[in-house]
């Protein structure tokens, strides 16, 4: 048995290059439950991160009692992330929402579904009757519902109401992944496969603390590192993450300087001749321009901008430039930072220069942060159109109009769909008057929370919130709808490497709580949305029929699902899209022939200027004659919208711990996870702490021009000048008038010009000491928040309550 709080990654199963990753089945059962007590195991996949690990839920007497990994699945080979091992316990929490709530006399009171839905419908109709009624209605959704939920929501919004105001919290998490994939390769969709870990000889983690955000992927990487012929490892991260400690080369770059880094690395690959001239000539556009843009970024200049030694940059270039099979993974250190899309395209550039795509081991993950973020994007429940279609391409709009049997004019396509920050801006200015928030918590997760709270509190804004629990956001709602969650409803979702999994219903939701799909179908029925022949617009009635409807919409597009059925998904492993008559078993890697989705009739975008976000026209795109080639895209480095000053001399970065997900609505209700990381903390470098006379555990105040928080200090090997605060801790589970602790009290309102992803990783702050320590900071000792070796801090453990089994299964 392993305490997976103390050891989040479990025992190693080393393997060599090209060998299959050994199977290790992880299992956790509630106290006192033995394997033989389990009535049935119900298949699903992980919903507390984006890795898409295939799981089975243990059910006994109609209740969840545990979880185990699915041995045969291609993604995880039986392994389970610690959040998934313990997180399911939250769903039985006594404070689950059981009945709809409506606001009466300023208070939320319980009601029935009819009353709650009728209030929503009445307000919807009232707004729709006004001139430009479509523009008064907005939707803000999630990366944590199922494909069927999102597709239904997308059709309601885009063909029923006809509003462009629909986005997901995926805007905060992986909008840049999508934007970078579209910009370089023409369409969203990860080129790589998780099996590239098995074949690669070098791995580069770009702003990606994979050890804490995708633990199972990290287990796979670690198993390769412990086996024969291990891959070399590069980590770009200002924090001393487990990845950084394991890495052969660690670049703790100054936050906000990623573009200078990738430009210098591209320059070095070109200067050293470490690029594939034939691949570049045959499969890319823009080499000369790239070469000109990166020319000034010598290693010395980048060293100065990024604040890392030039020799380490040279070592990184050598690692990237000399292997045969390079695997890269990119996440929030790039996506939520300055020049996000440009920096992420910079990683794409390195792979294009080296021809490192579409072969075993030569892979690229522009990572997701949430379990079903990929589906939010594919189905168009965010600022995209369904089926990875291009809002600026009239043929794509006609295709959607045919699938839905509506007039093309109904579908909002006169400009890109609104992004989250724009939706909130319209609400702030009073033109959006109805906002339906599903499965997300913007009152804790959006930047500059003071402003978000003022917007949600506006009298003229009708707010609907659909969630599992009361949250910071439900407190601003006019109607609260109790949702059913994972394990309580059926549906599919898709991992980073395009693996589609089916999640079956294992138990009933509590009280009157309903599946998200059922809520949306009820709304569509009550609103009586019709197609152009007078038939119901939403003709499906359950998850499987919704999936079949989505398949029609995906047909012929890069994310083709037509070859997948629920029945096939009940097999041993998930299936990767595209899966169609031409590729009946799915598709492991995209772009194996070096042909990209950039042709005008295929592409999801005509492209943008990376500096300003200016959109290119169809004519401008066609004039480049993409002919299936990928775009090499580069811009000059520009400093962040906020840089340190005398008044605010430090740089704040925000992020996660392995034990929590988002605003902890689920993980805080799992005792093992909550105990491992119970409270906010503030990471400081030793020199900065000494300057401020701060010792381990002292309470510090962190202030930006926008707000302030307090928390105990953890002194770590973080880059000097950097301050880290985890973003998980809001106010829903604290009493009274204590000091604020949400990282987003501090963050700035600014976003990337192309992906519109907010900049969470760069805010200027000052830190002051407030009170003496009463003990060490409550930060985990396991990952990037590990204390310095000389500090006396008890290790984070879960003890007996966290003991899980890990069984090696011979294949």
């Amino acid at each position, binding site marked *: 048995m392993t305490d997976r709080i103390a050891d989040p990654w479990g025992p190693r199963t080393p393997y060599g290059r090209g060998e299959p990753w050994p199977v290790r089945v992880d299992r956790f059962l509630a106290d006192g439950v033995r394997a033989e007590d389990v009535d049935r195991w119900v298949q699903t996949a992980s919903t507390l991160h984006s890795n898409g690990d295939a799981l089975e839920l243990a059910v006994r007497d109609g209740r969840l009692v545990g979880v185990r990994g699915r041995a045969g699945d291609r993604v995880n080979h039986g392994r389970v992330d610690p959040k998934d091992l313990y997180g399911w316990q939250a769903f039985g929490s006594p404070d689950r929402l059981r009945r709809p709530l409506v606001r009466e006399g300023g208070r939320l009171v319980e009601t029935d579904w009819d009353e709650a839905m009728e209030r929503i419908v009445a307000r919807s109709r009232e707004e729709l009757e006004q001139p430009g009624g479509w*523009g008064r209605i907005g939707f803000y959704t999630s990366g944590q519902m199922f494909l069927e939920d999102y597709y239904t929501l997308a059709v309601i919004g885009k063909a029923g109401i006809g509003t*462009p105001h629909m986005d997901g919290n995926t805007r905060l998490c992986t909008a840049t992944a999508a934007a970078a994939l579209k910009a370089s390769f023409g369409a969203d969709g990860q080129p790589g496969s998780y099996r590239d870990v098995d074949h690669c000889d070098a791995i580069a983690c770009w702003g990606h603390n994979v050890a804490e955000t995708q633990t199972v992927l990290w287990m796979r990487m670690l198993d390769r590192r412990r086996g024969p012929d291990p891959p070399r490892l590069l980590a770009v991260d200002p924090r001393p993450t487990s990845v950084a400690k394991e890495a052969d080369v660690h670049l703790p770059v100054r936050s906000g300087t990623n573009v200078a880094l990738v430009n210098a690395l591209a320059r070095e690959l070109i200067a050293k001749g470490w690029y594939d001239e034939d691949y570049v000539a045959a499969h890319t556009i823009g080499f000369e321009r790239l070469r000109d843009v990166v020319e000034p970024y010598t290693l010395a200049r980048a060293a100065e901008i990024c604040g890392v030694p030039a020799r380490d940059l040279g070592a990184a270039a050598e690692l990237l430039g000399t292997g045969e099979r390079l695997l890269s993974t990119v996440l929030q250190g790039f996506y939520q930072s300055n020049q996000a899309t440009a920096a992420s395209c910079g990683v794409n550039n390195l792979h294009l220069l080296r021809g490192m795509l579409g072969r075993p081991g030569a892979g690229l993950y522009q990572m997701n942060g949430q379990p079903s973020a990929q589906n939010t994007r594919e189905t168009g429940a965010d600022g995209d159109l369904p089926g990875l279609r291009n809002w600026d391409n009239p043929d794509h709009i006609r295709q959607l109009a045919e699938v839905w049997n509506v007039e093309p004019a109904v579908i909002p396509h006169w400009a890109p769909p609104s992004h989250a920050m724009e939706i909130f801006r319209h609400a702030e*200015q009073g033109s959006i008057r109805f906002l339906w928030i599903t499965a997300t918590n913007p009152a804790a997760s959006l930047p500059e929370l003071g402003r978000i709270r003022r917007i949600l509190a506006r009298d003229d804004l009708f707010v609907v919130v659909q969630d599992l629990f009361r949250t910071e956001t439900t407190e601003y709602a006019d109607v609260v709808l109790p949702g059913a969650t994972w394990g309580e409803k059926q549906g599919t979702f898709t991992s980073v490497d395009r693996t589609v999994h089916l999640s079956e219903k294992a138990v009933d939701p509590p009280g009157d709580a309903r599946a998200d799909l059922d809520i949306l179908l009820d709304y569509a029925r009550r609103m009586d949305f019709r197609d152009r022949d007078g038939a119901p617009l939403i003709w499906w009635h359950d998850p499987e029929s919704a999936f079949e409807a989505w398949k029609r919409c995906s047909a012929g597009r890069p994310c083709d699902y037509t070859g997948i059925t629920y029945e096939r998904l009940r097999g041993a492993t998930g299936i990767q899209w595209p899966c169609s008559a031409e590729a009946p078993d799915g598709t492991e890697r995209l772009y194996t022939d070096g042909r990209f989705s950039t042709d005008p009739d295929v592409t999801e975008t005509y492209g943008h200027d990376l500096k300003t976000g200016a959109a290119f026209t169809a004519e401008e795109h066609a004039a480049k004659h993409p002919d299936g080639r990928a775009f090499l895209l580069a811009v000059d480095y520009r400093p962040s919208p906020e840089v340190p000053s005398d008044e605010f001399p430090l740089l704040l970065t925000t992020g996660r711990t392995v034990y929590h997900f988002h605003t902890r609505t689920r993980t805080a209700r799992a005792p093992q996870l909550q105990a491992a990381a119970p409270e906010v903390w503030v990471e400081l470098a030793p020199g900065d702490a000494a300057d401020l006379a701060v010792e381990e555990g002292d309470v510090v105040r962190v202030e930006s021009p926008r707000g302030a928080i307090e928390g105990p200090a953890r002194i770590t090997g973080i880059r000097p000048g950097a301050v880290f605060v985890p973003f998980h801790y809001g106010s829903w589970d604290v009493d009274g008038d204590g000091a604020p602790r949400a990282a987003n009290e501090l963050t700035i309102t600014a976003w990337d010009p192309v992906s519109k992803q907010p900049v969470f990783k760069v805010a200027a702050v000052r830190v002051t000491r407030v009170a003496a320590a009463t003990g060490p900071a409550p930060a985990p000792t396991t990952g990037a928040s590990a204390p310095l070796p000389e500090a006396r801090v008890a290790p984070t453990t879960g003890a007996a309550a966290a003991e899980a089994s890990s069984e090696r299964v011979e294949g």
Partner: protein
Amino acid sequence: MQLAHYLGLLHRAEEELASAYREIARAHADDADVFHVCAMLAEECDAHAERLGPFAARYGEEEPDEPERLHSELFGGARGGPLGLLRDLHDLYLMATECDIAWTLVEQAAQGARDEDLCGVVAGCEEETANQLRWLRTRMKQAAPQVLVVAG
């Protein structure tokens, strides 16, 4: 040779555009993208004006008196609110258009004058100006339906 006048016109147009970007960035700071992008484009216009400086001086030595009515006034100050933002971006578009066509004409003249240095400056600045127009168009297209049809 009248080229100096056109260089002067363009120099002043870039300076005026830079100052209009700055004023509009400040006036619409709550529209965070407008604030950040306009501030960045103001710097771009500053750089254009700076790069034109030496050429204006060089051709200025051969300059006859400036003809009347060469300069136009396109910007009368920033406005407030969503409709004000749309109108302000519209003004910026017209001002950037003036720069854009002036760059084209200066390029023609630079070719006639066989001035390769000036041709080089024009090529870089003209592309950036075209991109400013592209951004303004993108941003206005995004804003217009909500402002003109939805907002009360």
